[in-house]
């Protein structure tokens, strides 16, 4: 099929965008799962939509193309562009603008016949006017009713159509500039911004993760199912093996990391009979099912687990119900900000001030390994640490020894 800038299936470009943006080291030859033609087409798409952020590097394995974006320097998420590329037919776009012209806000409802006549009258101005049959127009109106832009009214056997509201965006551009970057499914805010006159945003964003953009449709489906308290059947694809698995779940909450950009679905798994987390970027489809009568009860159960969740893991590798971690940091009296840091970053843990130079953090969590990266941020101050999982404690110590060796810090001590 000839190349087209517009795309029908977001799934394929979703994988490429992640590869180009997050990883960025693969060359054309590395894309073994897909054809070379597919790679060329997707790269061309990204060049067309995001050309300003495309970078190239020539290495011994060939040319590498990647996306490099400092999200602090861009007022609007450039990846939103990909969601504005859906393909359509010549008939779709022609019909759209004529329908919207016929069904204007405040106009009286029209029958299908009146609409068809109106379209014919407008198209008669063209040299070879195209015609739309009754079924095509009815189908499009039904589709628009589902999207909420057309209202269908039935009075006995008479069906009429009218515009579902006006086109006023009821919030300011500042509101959209801010929330389109910070709220879940922010791309919808970007769609709204497209309706308004252009203006420079007054906002910029630090620590701004935009990787979730590619998962907006999956997230949106999960949020809708959650709102309706429905079961979902999700299909996941393993990034490493490519294997697909299906899970029947009750979606309970979306947990987002503002320190990595990862998004997780916390859900009750009917297969595992427990609440667990699922990476949203690994989900490739969501199918909403029946309403779940136990939704509130399950959500309450999740809420009761939260005092023991440092991250999203609901089970340790050792299988214990809860694992204990504590550590003590030392600082100078003028380094009060370290104590403040502990308070600010403690999440489900507790912080105890032992003296004006030492504080202790402790927590009982489902998975103590989730604390390890954070504990390492206090390296140079850790004077004591204990894990109830002794294997994890040994690994923490061993990792430290490896770091000492890596950076030539003295000799490794005997274990």
């Amino acid at each position: 099929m000839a190349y087209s800038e517009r795309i029908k299936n977001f799934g394929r470009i979703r994988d490429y965008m992640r590869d180009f943006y997050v990883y960025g080291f693969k060359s054309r030859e590395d894309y073994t799962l897909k054809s070379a033609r597919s790679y060329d087409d997707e790269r061309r798409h990204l060049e067309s939509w995001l050309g300003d952020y495309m970078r190239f590097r020539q290495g011994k394995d060939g040319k590498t193309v990647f996306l490099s974006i400092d999200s602090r320097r861009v007022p609007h998420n450039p990846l939103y562009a990909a969601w504005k590329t859906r393909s359509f037919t010549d008939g779709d776009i022609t019909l759209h603008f004529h329908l919207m012209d016929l069904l204007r806000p405040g106009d009286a409802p029209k029958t299908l016949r009146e609409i068809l006549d109106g379209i014919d009258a407008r198209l008669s101005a063209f040299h070879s006017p195209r015609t739309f049959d009754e079924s095509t127009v009815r189908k499009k109106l039904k589709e628009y009713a589902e999207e909420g832009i057309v209202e269908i009214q039935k009075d006995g056997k008479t069906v009429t159509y009218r515009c579902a509201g006006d086109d006023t965006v009821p919030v300011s551009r500042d509101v959209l500039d801010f929330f389109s970057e910070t709220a879940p499914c922010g791309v919808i805010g970007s769609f709204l911004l497209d309706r308004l006159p252009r203006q420079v945003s007054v906002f910029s964003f630090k620590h701004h993760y935009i990787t979730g953009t590619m998962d907006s449709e999956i997230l949106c489906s999960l949020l809708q199912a959650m709102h309706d308290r429905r079961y979902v059947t999700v299909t996941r694809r393993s990034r490493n093996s490519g294997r697909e698995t299906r899970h029947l779940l009750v979606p309970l909450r979306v947990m987002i990391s503002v320190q990595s950009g990862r998004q997780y679905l916390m859900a009750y798994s009917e297969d595992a009979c427990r609440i667990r987390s699922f990476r949203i970027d690994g989900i490739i489809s969501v199918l909403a099912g029946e309403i779940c009568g136990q939704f509130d009860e399950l959500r309450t159960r999740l809420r009761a687990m939260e005092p023991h969740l440092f991250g999203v893991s609901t089970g340790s590798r050792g299988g214990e119900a809860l694992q204990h971690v504590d550590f003590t940091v030392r600082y100078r009296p003028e380094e009060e900000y370290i104590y403040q840091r502990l308070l600010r970053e403690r999440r489900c843990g507790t912080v105890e001030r032992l003296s004006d130079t030492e504080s202790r953090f402790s927590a009982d969590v489902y998975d103590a390994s989730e604390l390890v990266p954070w504990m390492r941020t206090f390296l140079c101050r850790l004077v004591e640490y204990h894990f109830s999982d002794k294997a994890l404690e040994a690994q923490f110590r061993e990792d430290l020894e490896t770091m000492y060796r890596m950076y030539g810090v003295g000799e490794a001590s005997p274990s």
Partner: protein
Amino acid sequence: MMLFSELYSAYYSAVAAVLTAACDHRAGKEEIREIIRERAFSESLLSMEPALTKGEWQLLLPDGTTPLCAPPTMPLTTLQRRWLAAICQDPRIRLFTDELPSLGDTEPLFSQEDILLFDRYADGDPYGDEDYIRRFRLILRSIRERTPLSIDSIGRGGAVIHRTLMPERLEYSEKDDKFRLIGSGCRYGYVVNLARILRCYPSPVPPAFQSAEGTDASKCCVTLELWDERNALERVLMHFSHLEKQAEKLEEGHYRVTLTYDLSDETEMIIRLLSFGPMIRVTGPEDFVEKIRSRLILQKQCDPGQHA
């Protein structure tokens, strides 16, 4: 409700703008091209211009007018209304307005119960505080109107700092859950945490200095080698995905990554890199490596493992 829909496409948006122009006057080829360039993508012109001008899309007549009766409109979709209803439940909406839009009985797409930012810092700005809201709105207006501001704020040591600056933009950190005002024309730094502001009012006189706000000149690079154990490759690249970066495969399971960051964030970068433990090794620049080494030397001195 479809999120990936042609209704939200750049193409429909560009065509709506072309037809708006054509309702007003005969749209010329150059004007059409300009609109497409501005609203769509670099290759869009190739397909859109002929489709519009040669009658594939029967919307624009050969003379540049349109048979449409009025400029195109489209009501908000249900998805857009539901998203708006959701953001209206966010406490930060009060920073912008006291009057929430009327969205009828629209169900929000999500509630505050549905989402948790689980690793956000706990000392975020006080979005319900009336003084904070008043200052936020004044700053927002001053940026738009290019009005200098006089600001009294609490410095790190607790002393009150007075400065006059030209407000340029508001920077929000999702991790810190804080706004910072980025200004120019000020001797004592151009970044002010909004929550640390005590008083803020329009200044009758411009800032005393002509300094610009922070620019690319303050950007730095750090290079590291990475061994893909315990999923380190994905964790590191996701964690630093918000920065400009380059990743290169050296051999199977071994990579080199270069990150570009702001000099003012160096301490934060050091501790973030330390969090990855021995899966990464910072290789340059040497002064950055030395800062990592210094921390490890201190750690070794107080390491309980050393005395076990």
